């Protein structure tokens, strides 16, 4: 997030929520927004194909067809530029590329956008006017925006929208991705990405590599960007990847096109899985290592507003389970690289030295409310919102982007669009929440959400078993008939291994971010026997 969570309640006067089912995925953040709306401080625009809870609070609801985000965002920008509602001062002083952007969005007239996205032209215009009128307009988004083959473009469009309205670098004004998992931010910050070292320092950068090599006491570091999760699976299928070490992930449920994943993982010479439970992935591993959970170790997580906070040990791990960090040190040592730390705090000191955004942090300073990066020196108070005064690259670039149709569209054989995601009561592949009685009682099994009109046509009643089939696979689950999902679409949560939504999904990737297109693929639905 470029802003802080509290700014959504206190400072933003218009919030555009898109691709985020906030009340279900980030309930506590949704309360901040709901309070602001209730107090009359904030107006909300929701852009989402599903009638999510936030629609009830919204001033305007744009119900776009799946996979058309770049089109309607370009449409919004078109209206704001055409009606001269943009922030001239900000655009002139802090950005570049207005002419190119203007040209790119010119064809996205409200009428054309209506044809592509299904959003009525008038609604698009009102939304554009409302967002442009904000003193501090905030954009809140999540996987609903990024999990498309054009996800990177959609994120660029959001940045374009924010910049032309001067909604960056001020309290409450910004672009705010909500992270689905507790430490996505920290994993990205600290080098768990194939193209960057900790602190987003490119592996192709000679000086960065030299700095790390020296600190790590090795002669050199690999200079070619590595493979992403989905590419690793392809590599395993092809045979170029021979060994995979999995720390606390469950690709056998979470990754797209599970048949392909299974084939890949099965052809490895060595699959190691380190986890809390014998997950679907651990079941096919060659070696399984028992890991400690968050309550059993010390460390830090970085939240979605870049706040680094302490994790503290409360209980001992069961049996012989050990913390992930402890296991890694032991393994490194056995591979001839002695690795040992007295405490998590020592590891943190080392990573802080090498990661510019974290440099001023230490466990002592993280007591209290933690620190938000960037925090470059030990007296720096941390940063509540980003991009005040100047962007890292100087001027903010307005990126012209074109809408491209989704990788798969409805067809006669596959007449529904499938959207996958999460529900309030479950988390990720369910290994933790499905073992927690309370939440699991509320949402114990996979449900295929569909619109009453579709259900009626297919003679499906709420609770009936249905078979959902895509070009890649099939699953059986009960139907949940309701008005949240639009006609012509179905929504399936991906938490349930026995009815794994990712048997159906497509491994088509966004070309830049390599994010699978979980939000759009074509399926058919039929009534099934229990």
């Amino acid at each position: 997030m470029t802003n802080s969570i509290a700014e959504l309640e206190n400072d933003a006067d218009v919030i555009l929520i898109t691709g985020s089912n906030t009340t279900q995925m980030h309930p506590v953040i949704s309360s901040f927004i709901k309070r602001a709306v209730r107090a009359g401080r904030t107006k909300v625009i929701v852009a989402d194909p599903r009638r999510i809870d936030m629609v009830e609070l919204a001033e305007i609801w744009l119900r776009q067809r799946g996979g058309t985000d770049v089109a309607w965002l370009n449409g919004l920008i078109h209206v704001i530029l055409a009606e001269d509602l943009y922030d001239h001062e900000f655009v002139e002083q802090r950005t570049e590329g207005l002419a190119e952007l203007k040209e790119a969005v010119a064809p996205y007239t409200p009428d054309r956008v209506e044809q592509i996205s299904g959003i009525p032209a008038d609604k698009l215009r009102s939304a554009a006017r409302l967002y442009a009128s904000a003193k501090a307009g905030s954009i809140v988004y999540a996987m609903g925006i990024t999990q498309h083959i054009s996800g990177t473009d959609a994120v660029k469009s959001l940045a374009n929208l924010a910049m032309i309205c001067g909604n960056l670098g001020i309290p409450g004004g910004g672009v705010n991705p909500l992270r689905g998992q507790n430490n996505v931010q920290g994993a990205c910050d600290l080098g768990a990405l194939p193209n960057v070292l900790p602190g987003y320092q490119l592996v192709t950068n000679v000086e960065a590599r030299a700095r790390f090599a020296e600190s790590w006491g090795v002669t050199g570091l690999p200079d070619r960007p590595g493979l992403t999760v989905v590419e690793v699976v392809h590599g395993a299928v092809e045979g170029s990847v021979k060994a995979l070490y999995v720390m606390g992930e469950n690709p056998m449920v979470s990754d797209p096109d599970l048949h392909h994943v299974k084939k890949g993982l099965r052809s490895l010479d060595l699959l190691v899985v380190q986890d809390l439970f014998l997950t679907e992935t651990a079941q096919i591993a060659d070696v399984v290592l028992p890991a400690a959970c968050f309550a059993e170790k010390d460390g830090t997580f970085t939240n979605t507003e870049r706040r680094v906070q302490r994790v503290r040990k409360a209980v001992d791990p069961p049996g012989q389970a050990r913390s992930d960090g402890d296991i890694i040190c032991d393994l490194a040592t056995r591979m001839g690289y002695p690795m040992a730390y007295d405490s998590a705090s020592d590891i943190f000191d080392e990573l802080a030295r090498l990661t510019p955004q974290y440099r001023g942090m230490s466990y002592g300073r993280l007591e209290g409310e933690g620190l938000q990066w960037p925090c470059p020196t030990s007296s720096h108070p941390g940063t509540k919102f980003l991009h005040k005064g100047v962007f890292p690259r100087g001027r903010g670039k307005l990126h012209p982007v074109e809408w491209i149709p989704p990788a798969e569209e409805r067809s006669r054989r596959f007449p529904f669009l499938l959207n996958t995601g999460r529900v309030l009561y479950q988390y990720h592949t369910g290994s933790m929440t499905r073992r927690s009685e309370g939440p699991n009682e509320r949402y114990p099994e996979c449900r295929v959400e569909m619109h009453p009109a579709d259900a009626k046509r297919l003679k499906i009643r709420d609770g009936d078993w249905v078979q959902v089939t895509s070009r890649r696979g099939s699953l059986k689950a009960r139907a949940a008939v309701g008005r949240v999902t639009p006609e012509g679409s179905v929504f399936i949560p991906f938490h349930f291994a026995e009815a794994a939504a990712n048997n159906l999904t497509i491994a088509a990737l966004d070309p830049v971010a390599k994010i699978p297109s979980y939000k759009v693929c074509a399926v058919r639905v039929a009534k099934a026997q229990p």
Partner: protein
Amino acid sequence: MDTFTITADGKEIEGRPGQTVLQVCQDANVSIPTLCHHPALKPYGGCRLCVVEIEGMRGLPAACTTPATAGMVVHTHTDLLHRARRTILELLLANGDHDCLVCNANGSCELQTLVYEHEIEHRPEGEPFTRRPIDDSNAMIRRDLNKCVLCSRCVRACMDHQVNGVIDVAARGSESVIATFNDMPLGDSECVFCGECVQVCPTGALLEKRAQFASQPWALRRVRTTCTYCGVGCQLELNVRGNSVVKVTSSHELPGPNGGSLCVKGRFASDFIGHPDRLTHPLIRQNGKLREATWDEALGHIASKLSEIRSEHGPDSIAFFSSARATNEENYLLNKLARAVVGTNNIDHCARL
């Protein structure tokens, strides 16, 4: 900012514009008993335990709803006030099932503390109260409204803080009661089980069901940490007895992004921690089956196999999936293992998934 002075129990203390008498007194450590008041919620003025005497003002105004003004002379502990408060407490005691010995809130109940502080020696005899059925309709929250003192904290938490508006004070003839829409059990209502109502309830009326009979409040150790589920990073406290996490709570007093709120996952999805399915030994596949192994054997096997694959096929034939659920320190270490020890940039995690 402008400040002004008021006198409380003969002491001169400082107030700021907009503050209530209660806030000014509390800031200056002049204690006034309260029950419906909760620092994170809007004032309600319902229980009348915070009554005070203010010179020049008639009657006994409630400190939590009376604005403080310059020069006010306030008395917080007079015989009259003590009697008034005792009467209120005796009424509450008579009108509910306040049997501390068999209550899970014993030792952490604000009513119990107030009764003790006001030196009440017996439960007063009164009209027997109407018993209400206990709402046991779900696995998370147990509602026993026989222990409810109608402070409305839960209603304000649900309505004003979480903005869920699931419960309200419903008037039924002369008897008010906290109820969901149509008085449905919580499990059938619109409740999303954030548990904020439980957190603010001063008595044993609302309880985390899992914590019942798991520990008496004074045997709990509280460890502050960060939620393991979504990216909000809510600050919470693991309530631990021995080696098990009995319940999860938060508080507006914990500094952090969540202001004391949690959602159902943070608060109620902690059973997995001590779950019998947890892995307790390393496992190695032998003849197609996973069998228990020692750490030495398991790590030795991995180290030699990785080294072998690396020398045969090069470092880029090895890949690592790190985790968006592991700590920063662990992600950093795995990145170091991949890059410095194995020599590959093949490290990623499921940020994208």
